[in-house]
């Protein structure tokens, strides 16, 4: 990049777009590889879509004719090629079982999963960042030790158990939230939130210990840096040192993990959506796998893969926002 670009014009967005373009090829390659792999996996998956459609009353000759109709008698690569061709032109196909358009199914289900994952991230970060900062302020102190026990507890509990506990305590006994089900945003913000809070909390539970411990460790090492000592010597308030001077340089690993975790959370959403009966992509995936609805599985994987790649490029760009060194390194 030429030196004539002024720092002001070099907005975050432009940097992000540049990075995306630079990653473009590898991104495409990655998404392609993921779709090939999923196609191959659904192929070796035991069971047969024709049997899934016809049910146990299927007669052998029916199975054969349906397999032909579904094109399952063609070689794998031919089927993949025609799927890819259609997908590139925006047609993800139809569900074998319900004949719904897969693009429409994704449009219905994706927002629920995105909301769930984002709410979980906000809850997890909203709790772990302040907790980690305060724990790092006095490592080994009372608060730090309490948090240590708390996070150990959280990390040892599986999500489905926490979910059921939350359902029994907050929904069945206290009656504060519905035990399961989903209300759309159009039904009202509070109704929507009341159905999403328990699932998001359950999903956030396993992230909190990771975020907290990571940030706490980074904070402790940052707080030992000389410039912090200088800041202290200058008599700056501890609050100001912690939040203004120490947090930003300590948050690199956290941001990486938050980005990578988006993928993990999508995986976690499969369990949480099933547990809380949310009509998201996770539940759609479970149903599709059980029903051998190959193109639906393929569509979901495509969306998740593309989303994951974009998130990682975004994380990459976030470094540049936080650290001038990264910004300059890219430019030269």
């Amino acid at each position, binding site marked *: 990049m030429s030196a004539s670009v002024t720092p002001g014009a070099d907005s975050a967005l432009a940097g992000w777009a540049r990075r995306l373009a630079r990653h473009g090829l590898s991104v495409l390659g990655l998404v392609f590889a993921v779709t090939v792999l999923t196609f191959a996996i659904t192929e070796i*998956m*035991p*069971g*047969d879509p024709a*049997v*899934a*459609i*016809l*049910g*146990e*009353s*299927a*007669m*052998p000759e*029916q*199975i054969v004719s*349906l397999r032909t109709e579904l094109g399952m008698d063609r070689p794998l690569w031919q089927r993949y090629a025609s799927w890819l061709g259609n997908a590139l032109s925006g047609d993800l196909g139809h*569900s074998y*079982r*319900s*004949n*719904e358009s897969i693009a429409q*199914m994704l449009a*219905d*289900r994706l927002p629920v999963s995105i909301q769930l994952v984002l709410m979980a991230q906000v809850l997890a970060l909203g709790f772990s960042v302040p907790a980690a900062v305060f724990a790092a302020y006095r490592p080994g102190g009372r608060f730090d030790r309490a948090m240590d026990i708390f996070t150990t507890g959280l990390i040892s509990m599986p999500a489905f158990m926490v979910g*059921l506990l939350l*359902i*029994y305590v907050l*929904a*069945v006994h206290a*009656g504060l939230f*519905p*035990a*399961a*089900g*989903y209300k*759309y945003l159009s039904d009202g913000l509070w109704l929507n939130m009341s159905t999403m809070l328990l699932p998001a909390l359950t999903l956030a539970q396993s992230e909190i210990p990771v975020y907290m411990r990571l940030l706490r460790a980074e904070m402790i090492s940052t707080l030992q840096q000389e410039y912090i000592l200088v800041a202290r010597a200058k008599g700056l308030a501890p609050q100001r040192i912690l939040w203004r001077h120490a947090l930003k340089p300590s948050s690199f690993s956290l941001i990486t993990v938050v980005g990578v975790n988006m993928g993990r959370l999508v995986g976690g959403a499969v369990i949480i959506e*099933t*547990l*809380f*009966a*949310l*009509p*998201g992509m996770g*539940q*759609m995936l*479970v*149903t599709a796998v*059980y*029903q*051998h609805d190959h193109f639906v599985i393929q569509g979901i994987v495509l969306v998740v893969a593309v989303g994951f790649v974009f998130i990682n490029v975004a994380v990459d760009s976030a470094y540049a926002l936080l650290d001038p060194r990264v910004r300059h390194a890219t430019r030269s």
Partner: protein
Amino acid sequence: MNPTAHWKFALAIVAGLLMTTAAQAQAKAPTPTQGGSINVAQEADWATLDPIGMGATTGLQAGKSIYDNLLDINEKGEIIPALAQSFTAARDAKSYRIKLRPGIKFHDGTPLDAEAVAFNVRRAADPANRCRCLPDLVDLAEVRVLGQIVMKQPASHFLAVLAEVPGLMASPAAIQKFGKDYGANPVGTGPFVLKEWKRGNFLHVVRNPNYWRAGLPYLDEVFYRPMPDEQTRIAALKAGNVDVVLLPAAKDVVESRKDRNLKVIDPGNLGSTFVMFMHKAEPMSDPRVRTAITLATDSKAIAKTILHGVYKPARTAFGSGLAAHEKVTSWPEFDLKKAQDLVKEIGKPIKFKFSIQPTPTSLHVAQALQQMWKRAGIEAEIHSLEQVQLIRNAIDSNFEAMLFRWPGRSDHDNNVYQFFHSKSTRNYVKYANPEMDRLLEAGRTLTDPAMRERIYVEINNLVARDLPYSFLWYSTPYIVTSAKVNGVPVVADGLLRTETVWKAK
């Protein structure tokens, strides 16, 4: 978590107990409350609401709200007219006359006439439409518009078929209008009309103001909500988010009975869960092997422990909703000593693969069976298969022994003919006995219920001797409701007939 519910059909209480509660409920006879809504939790969403895509049992749940059947079964298991005003069977059981109730209209205003009936039955019977009900219709020769149905051969079980999927009447106009998308836009004559279907979240149906049964339905609306996790279903019921839970887990039936705010409805059952033996290959081709395995099977212990005592051990192919239920004299009851002696007499090691679906209950049951058989000197290797693969292997007769279930149907014939007749494509175990074929055919020729019952008792005894299957327990499709829900008819198929349901305020 597992939405396949191989096992969830299978729970049970003593039928007598249930009948007393039902009688008590009737004695009080409170006046039904008009209006209100209920939420029904079920294990999975339906792929389609087109009758031809529905399975014989659970797929029908919402179908029963939107559609009516030509015929139906009542609490006593008898075939009764529904959309039909009357029906008559020819003496030779080769044809039926159906007389329709006049003046019934579909939700879209088109009339339910003889043409609509013929259209629906023909549509289900057309192989190109791939109705899951097709095996029930292979003997159908012709449907005449004047209300006559002609069979290729005697088929006295066919009236019961009309009480199931092939007898659901959908609007021909709507089927033509929506084409491939009809499954998302169902139009029937039923007590409720589709309002909105958000797949994976809810199916919302509202009262049909022009319903042909005067004064019904009581409710204004019904929501069906798919909740794949069984613990969540019960939690949602306890929290008051749903009013009815279909197919609860066995332990939840036990728990719910203790809860004063909940009611457990035992509708009885039609089918069973069993081990099936592949007859055409060693070692199961030796009848002594099948007998030894059955003798070594303590089905009472399984029912009592793993199944929490809510399932009844089974010895016949017929659930409590069928006349020949448990009427068998020669079933090889559990007797370890006899089993051991028989194994010694056979004189060579008995080893086989036991195919199951890896759901928690299946695994527990399979492991228990494995231990029981081992004590008799029989070695089973558990072979876990994903559900669709298991079904595929059953269809291909590719197994030695398999844990399988048949939810059961409302006529005896449908629980045995297709599985045990030597010429049936669904004879998974390749069982062939001319005596069995003769009995099965006789069951289709006779129309007198008492005479038919005698045939099926004979079949019970022949099955107990030849052991194509070794029965384990009867599959009861329990319904758990909140105490406010009333008017759930207790029919052995476990389908929730919503038109008579009402909710106390």
